[in-house]
């Protein structure tokens, strides 16, 4: 029964990871930057929902408010920093966003304090299988909302004018520019949408789990991992590997103990990258 519990927990958690990873894949594909501050945007989104909770508004409304605020935060970050590193070396973008990550971490620490907080949604729990498996309704709610947002975004990317421009830029930014796409605007919008997605995920995390100013980096690493496992622009893959990661984490938590949870995530990243390297090197031809 514990494994069923861990599986269900993991899948519900993994859907959230997949939402964050989708944002990562979006900006990686379109702008070719890796955003280390991704996780910190998630946490910031979580704090917005938490603050609504503190002022007596039901934190579920954070799902709507937080992406709107985060969209503008994303645009601001883009205008200040990201647009200067877009067409530079990838390492520069990694380091620059690492700087943003440290900055955000500390600003959040000042603004909100270093306590682990949780926005209580009072959704109650669902019991399954003779109450051997306990699922908080908030987790089911968050998974449902993430799927909803993901579907909305996919439709938006397919149908709207901006979505088409974003996809065109991802395919070939130079050709898109020639054909009259304002790539600068597209980049800003992409980063804004990514930040908004982070905001949604963060609001959901603040309801279902806990948030803390320094918890950002693991979310970045998880989304990076999901993206490299799934590949860019492979949406079902992102969803599947997100859930897989969630299940892995729950089992690692259960078998190794909570203190090794984050460590196992990072180790898994290393293992996946090494596995990928050996798989790729078999394809590569070189002189021996």
């Amino acid at each position: 029964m514990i494994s069923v519990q861990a599986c269900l927990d993991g899948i519900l958690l993994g859907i959230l990871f997949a939402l964050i990873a989708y944002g990562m894949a979006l900006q990686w594909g379109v702008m070719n930057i890796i955003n280390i501050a991704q996780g910190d945007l998630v946490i910031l989104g979580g704090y917005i929902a938490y603050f609504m909770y503190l002022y007596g508004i039901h934190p579920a409304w954070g799902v709507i408010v937080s992406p709107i605020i985060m969209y503008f935060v994303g645009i601001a970050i883009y205008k200040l920093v990201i647009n200067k590193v877009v067409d530079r070396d990838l390492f520069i973008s990694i380091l620059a966003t690492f700087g943003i990550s440290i900055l955000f971490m500390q600003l959040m620490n000042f603004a909100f304090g270093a306590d682990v907080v949780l926005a209580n949604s009072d959704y109650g729990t669902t019991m399954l299988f003779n109450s051997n498996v306990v699922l908080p309704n908030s987790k089911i709610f968050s998974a449902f909302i993430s799927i909803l947002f993901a579907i909305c975004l996919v439709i938006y990317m397919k149908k709207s004018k901006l979505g088409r421009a974003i996809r065109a830029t991802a395919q070939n930014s130079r050709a898109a520019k020639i054909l009259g796409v304002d790539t600068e605007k597209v980049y800003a919008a992409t980063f804004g949408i990514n930040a908004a997605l982070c905001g949604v995920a963060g609001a959901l995390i603040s309801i279902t789990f806990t948030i803390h100013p320094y918890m950002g980096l693991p979310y970045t690493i998880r989304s990076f991992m999901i993206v490299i496992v799934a590949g860019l622009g492979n949406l079902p893959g992102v969803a599947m590997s997100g859930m897989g990661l969630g299940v892995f984490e729950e089992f690692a938590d259960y078998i190794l103990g909570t203190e090794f949870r984050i460590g196992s995530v990072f180790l898994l990243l290393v293992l996946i990258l090494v596995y990928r390297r050996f798989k790729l090197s078999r394809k590569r031809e070189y002189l021996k």
Partner: protein
Amino acid sequence: MNKNNLILYIGILTFGIAAPFIFPAFKVQLSILCVLIVLATTWNIQGGEMGYNSFGNILFYGLGMYLCASVQVGMFFPLAEWTESGGEKTFVHTPEQFFQGMAVGLIVAAVIPTIVAGLIGYSILGLRGHYFAICTLGLGVAAGEISGGIEIIGAGQGFTTPPFPNVGSLESRGEFFYFLSFFVLIMTFIAVRGIYSTRFKLILNAIRDNEDKAEAMGIQTMKYKIVGWMISAFFCGLAGGIMGGLVGYIDSTDVAFDGREMGVFMVLMAILGGKGTLWGPIIGATVFHIFKEGFWTFFLGWQYVALGVLIVVIVIYFPEGIMGWLREKYPQRFGEVIDEKDRKAQVELK
């Protein structure tokens, strides 16, 4: 030119030896500066020269720190009881035991990370570009999280390194660590300078500029990459061992595997000074350390905010670093000859 260099080296050496007596209050800061220079210089071997930008050298640094302290304690006392007592004065090192332990500890702290680098090098150095950067970032954080769960080295509550024994005057602790780190700094400088004047450095540069081409030219790139990383690991481990003794207390995520501080610092210092130069990381580390200490003192609490802004500003506006800027300003000093005719033609074109 050579004579000038010699005078410069002698000047720096004299200053280095005299420094703790001129500024007795800053001995600890000077020792940290030496360690920082070692870290930046060795990061530069594979970050600047080889083009493999690693966030993971902190792994070797932390490993060296833990190893040195554990050996120093474990040689004479049971390690588990030591960490359990949390630095209580149940076990006291005699001066001989302390120095013996330190010596053996430093050797272990240098050798084991080198071996580790060699072992994981084959799998990790096959990654290219940003995959390597993220993978090493993951390694560093994973090491911190995992070592924070191991009981025998103190787990979450930390590990107190053996206190300095009562020998000589009150000043002797600072002097001992200063000269130890200064010695390691000189060793690093000589080694790196030696490396940079050999074919090895050219091969590393070839790997940075175009790895596939270098491979096609018959260079076994993997071998050189691993050796380059092992050299880095050797000095990082040594620096970590010294830093552990200097700080006196090891915590898994805040002191040893502190990717948020030391792990970024070494990258930042090398970039600030200028990647891929001998003097760049040294200048960068010095400037950075002075700036950092000033900031840490006057803006207490805001230091990480300042650090974040600093990283962004340096990366965006000074990716070439101080040395790169100097090179642009005074190309003659760097042995670049400017063709007057060519320059005039260029000016006319403008």
